[in-house]
């Protein structure tokens, strides 16, 4: 009797499975897109390698589906403003490109739609979507807000330590520093000489100051922007240790580091003037290409050094979400494009063309690690990251401006780390108070 029931259920399950398979094998982007052929969808792209990669692959998608993708390119610094204005004015954008720190903002304004709206419609959802295949940290940090998934991770970064093996070997090191303290106390003095520098930390007064410089020294030392009650945690002992560490480390960096953006740091490294940088994985292709790097043969990649509180590397990246202002056909077409661009099937090609997919399955092949040296470090970093590396709530655009201003003033020595932290803290708390976090009007989500 029991056996019978078991057999019955196994049979039933296999019938269902084959049925499902039959359905799945039937599904194709071409077929799913039939009702939407001829639809044009507008999306903002950045001037970065991951976007060039997907643009090169676009004709394939357009030919198969008949959906036209209209790409509007902006440098990172303009991308938020352009999109906010478009959404406020009810413009043309059908897809939102969301930096992880914008997601709270976009979601709370209802400019983007949860993917649930679409995954419930099997006709336009790739059976192989497999959300569990995305690195959980990445899907959580880049695509989700308050427990709801809005976007799929598209252009994905982790901070990595890029080091010049040749310079390190010459100075007698057979590997990269394991901790930040080691980087400063051992590698710093040994590598800073003859007009060369041990390290460069891009710190220009824009998002680079907040994300790449300020936050990078908070977390590994146990600090953070906010405590549990959403009050400033910047004057805590741990945060202060981190900020003071940055001041101390500046002696091993080139002059005028506060004017360094990504381009300057990456170029300094690529020209062999700087032995180590901590940069986004996205710049890998720049430093290993002989066209743009004179040290291409010497480049090695490691995870960022550890601090007393662990590795906590910088985390950044973008997801794509369907914009609520799009009409129904555009929304469906946009959803198809987003799935396609972040799909398992395309992940490897995306990687080969210079993008960094967030699909775990894409990195399973051990041979990849030899071809792309950043892969092991990247995969390791994504196990260890903090989603709220920078708070992702709607108030971040205001707070990052404060951090940028006072963060650079601290670095320039115009104020002490304590004074600077105090200024940022009190201004940040004013913003959060106005937003209603302290009165209980808003949940403490970051």
């Amino acid at each position, binding site marked *: 009797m029991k056996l019978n029931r078991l057999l019955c259920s196994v049979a039933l399950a296999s019938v269902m499975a084959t049925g499902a398979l039959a359905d799945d094998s039937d599904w194709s982007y071409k077929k799913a897109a039939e009702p939407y052929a001829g639809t044009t969808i507008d999306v903002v792209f950045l001037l970065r390698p991951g976007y060039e990669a997907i643009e090169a692959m676009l004709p394939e998608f357009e030919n198969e589906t008949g959906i036209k993708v209209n790409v509007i390119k902006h440098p990172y610094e303009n991308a*938020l*403003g352009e999109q*906010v*204005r478009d959404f*406020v004015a009810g413009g043309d954008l059908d897809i939102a490109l969301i930096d992880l720190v914008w997601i709270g*903002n976009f979601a709370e*304004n209802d400019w983007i739609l949860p993917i649930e709206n679409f995954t419930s419609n099997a006709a336009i959802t790739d059976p192989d979507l497999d959300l569990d295949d995305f690195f959980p940290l990445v899907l959580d940090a880049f695509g989700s807000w308050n427990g709801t998934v809005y976007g799929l991770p598209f252009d994905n970064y982790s901070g990595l330590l890029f080091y010049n093996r040749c310079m390190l070997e010459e100075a007698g090191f057979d590997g990269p520093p394991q901790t930040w303290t080691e980087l400063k106390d051992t590698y710093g003095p040994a590598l800073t000489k003859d007009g060369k520098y041990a390290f460069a930390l891009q710190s*220009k*007064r*824009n998002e680079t100051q907040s994300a790449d410089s300020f936050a990078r020294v908070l977390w590994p030392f146990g600090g953070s922007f906010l405590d549990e009650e959403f009050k400033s945690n910047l004057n805590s002992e741990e945060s202060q240790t981190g900020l003071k560490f940055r001041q101390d480390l500046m002696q091993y960096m080139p*002059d*005028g*580091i*506060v*004017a*360094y953006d990504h381009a300057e740091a990456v170029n300094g490294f690529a020209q062999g*003037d700087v032995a180590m940088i901590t940069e986004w994985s996205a710049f890998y292709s720049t430093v290993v290409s002989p066209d743009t790097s004179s040290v291409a043969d010497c480049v090695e990649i490691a995870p960022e050094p550890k601090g007393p509180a662990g590795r906590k590397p910088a985390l950044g990246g973008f997801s794509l979400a369907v914009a609520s202002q799009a009409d129904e056909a555009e929304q469906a077409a946009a959803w198809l494009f987003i799935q396609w661009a972040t799909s398992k099937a395309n992940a490897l090609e995306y990687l080969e063309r210079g993008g960094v997919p967030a699909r775990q399955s894409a990195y399973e092949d051990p041979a990849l690690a030899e071809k792309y040296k950043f892969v092991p470090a990247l995969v390791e970093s994504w196990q260890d990251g903090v989603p709220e590396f920078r708070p992702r709530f*709607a108030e971040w*655009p*205001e707070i990052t*401006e404060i951090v940028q*201003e006072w963060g*650079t*003033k601290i670095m*320039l020595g*115009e104020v002490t780390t304590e004074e600077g932290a105090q200024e940022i803290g009190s201004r940040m708390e004013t913003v959060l108070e106005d*937003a209603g976090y302290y009165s209980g009007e808003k949940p403490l989500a970051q």
Partner: protein
Amino acid sequence: MRAQVSRRTIFAFIGPAVFGLAIVGIAPLLYAGWTSLHFFNLTKLKRIKFIGLENYWSVLTDEVFWQAMGRTFFLLCTALPLQIALGLGIALILHKPGLGLLKTLARLSLVLPMATTYAVVGLLGQVMFNQKFGVVNQLMGGANINWIGDPTNAFAMIIFWDVWQWTPFVALVLLAGLTMVPGEVEEAARLETKSWWVVLRHVQLPFLLPGLVAVLILRTADTLKLFDMVFTLTRGGPGSSTEFISLMIQRVGFRGFDQGLASAQAIILLIITIVLAQIYIRVFYKEV
């Protein structure tokens, strides 16, 4: 006998211009006035509310705003005298008789800096003042001066570009003023004295005054709204050392998205500009 022009004709001629001005200039101004009285944040449109003069109060008591204003006037007070001195020198040289073709060429080349887009000037500056590869450090015998990353040097660099770009404008305006001086008056003066200063002070300067007032007003307004060049060159940095008032307003309005506060700042700036222009006209301007 006065020709009678009907009111309709007058309205028909002036109306379109007034209408155009109203749409392009006055409507946005009124809208900015309305915005400045509200809590109006682009990312919090659900919470727009009337808050009276609170934004103005925040601006007037904001240390950062006044620091940016101070920086802007410091730029004006350093760059403008340089521009007037150099511009007057160039105008006087070009006003001397002789060397016709060369002077025409010189006049034409004066237009080039003015015709260069502000943003492009900033980008040029980034390349030319680059510490390592920049041509400026090369020309200074391979000096290792950190222009963009040092607060004082960055400010000096902005002054340099502003002077480079706008001295020709001052020169051309003053040259036009010099050509207004009646030839016989100038000739008579030169027979009286050999001192170029006396000629300049008593004969030429009265003709230059309207031009100088125009230069003062235009350059003050331009400096107060100086944005593109600084934005592409230093983005207000390092720290806040080149954050002039327009950069600050743009930052508040379009990077912090607080349109209400930014509108209040812009309106205060407008008031300051109008007051300054009035002062210039009352103090300096005299009909010849």
